[in-house]
């Protein structure tokens, strides 16, 4: 393996790889933000909604969580064009990842709220707080601390799942890398490089998450 040869090719390919990396970031950010927003609503509805709402959302989350994310992406890609919704591969992919994220975040939020001991709500009631006040002052702060580590994990899962969009033709980092490989035949070096970039990105996200956790942790 010739290091300088690889570095030369890497430099030559820098624009397309950077563009692919940028695409990866856009896909991941869009899916995480939209998916988490939707997921919070789902989680709240699962915790406080009526029986019918909870049933429908249970089916929604169970279905999405039981389906491999790859199948979700392919389904969104193929099905939507047939039913007349004209989405680009990129949009279909982000939609699939958003739905995927929402089901996970919904479950995380539901679980975190359920984990708060009943005594907390009772104590809040006993000092005369309404449900809204109880939720904002007592439940939400505790739930957020509980949610944080698992949510960071979901975010890294989305970053990793963004690679699957390469299969439906979205030129994110992995597909960009494959295109470079097809030109240079340096598959070992470039797959390793791509793997390293993803590892670094997720590692940084993990570290950022842990820093936030430390900041908001309650002294014991």
């Amino acid at each position, binding site marked *: 393996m010739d290091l300088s040869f690889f570095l030369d090719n890497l430099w030559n390919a820098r624009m397309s790889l950077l563009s692919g990396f940028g695409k990866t970031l856009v896909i991941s950010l869009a899916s995480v933000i939209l998916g988490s927003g939707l997921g919070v609503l789902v989680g709240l509805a699962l915790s406080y909604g009526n029986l019918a709402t909870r049933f429908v959302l249970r089916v929604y989350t169970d279905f999405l969580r039981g389906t491999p994310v790859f199948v979700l992406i392919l389904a969104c890609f193929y099905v939507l064009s047939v039913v007349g919704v004209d989405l680009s591969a990129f949009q279909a992919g982000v939609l699939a990842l958003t739905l995927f994220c929402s089901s996970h975040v919904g479950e995380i939020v539901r679980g975190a709220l359920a984990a708060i*001991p009943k*005594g*907390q709500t*009772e*104590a*809040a*009631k*006993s*000092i*005369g*707080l*309404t*449900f809204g*006040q109880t939720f904002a*002052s*007592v439940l939400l*702060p*505790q739930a957020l*601390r509980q949610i944080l580590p698992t949510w960071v994990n979901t975010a890294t899962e989305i970053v990793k799942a963004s690679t699957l969009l390469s299969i439906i033709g979205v030129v994110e980092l992995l597909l960009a890398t494959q295109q470079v490989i097809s030109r240079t035949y340096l598959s070992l070096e470039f797959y390793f490089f791509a793997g390293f970039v993803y590892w670094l990105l997720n590692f940084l996200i993990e570290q950022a998450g842990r820093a936030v956790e430390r900041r908001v942790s*309650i*002294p*014991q």
Partner: protein
Amino acid sequence: MTPVLKITDLHKSFGDLKVLTGIDLTVHKGDVVSLIGASGSGKTTLLRCVNLLEEFERGSIEIAGEAIGYRDEGGRRRRRPERQIARQRAMTGMAFQQFNLFPHMTALKNVMLGLVKTKKLGQDEARAVAEKWLDRVGMIERKDHYPGQLSGGQQQRVAIARAIAMNPQLMLFDEVTSSLDPELVQEVLAVVRDLAADGMTMLIVTHEMRFARDVSTKVVFMHQGRIAEEGPPEQIFGAPKSERLAGFLANSEI
């Protein structure tokens, strides 16, 4: 004088299980009433009905003359709106067996929360009231500590301050020492004794018989959802009228 608490013919069931089968109880200002009885006798459920943590199907509970939780509207029993119930809950204060302090807030903030949100006091006024009551229970030194940094006895004292700072008409104590290590029990009982001596109206569920005998103005013995015997502590502990009570006392430490 309107009694602080008037319970009339209270009935409560959990599904098919009848837990309270006709309770009548009156508590006047300054009274310290202890509820004793075996597990399952309904004493904790009774306490929790007073601040509507448990619903009840029949009967009425009045605090300072105001019917709690339900209202008679043209002969029909209707549940009051949530906002009213929240306000009514603030008329009583409760200390729980599991303390239930808010773990993400300091001791001071725990006590201030109800003052700010329910009583709508300003931050400075709330802080002053909170500090006064934390001092009263001996926890002023630790006001900026989090519950996780406090011992069980310390947490319970903060919890009592949180309830009392709301200036309730009636304090409800739900087995406040049952979760504590033995060496921490006395510090909490001392606080309750102190508040009772100051004239606080109290309804106490407890297993600590010696404490109940020392601090109460009236003791109520419950059995299977009804009041089996009630009277002053000397009578209840010294000369029990019913065999059941005598049997219960024999099995408890007194």
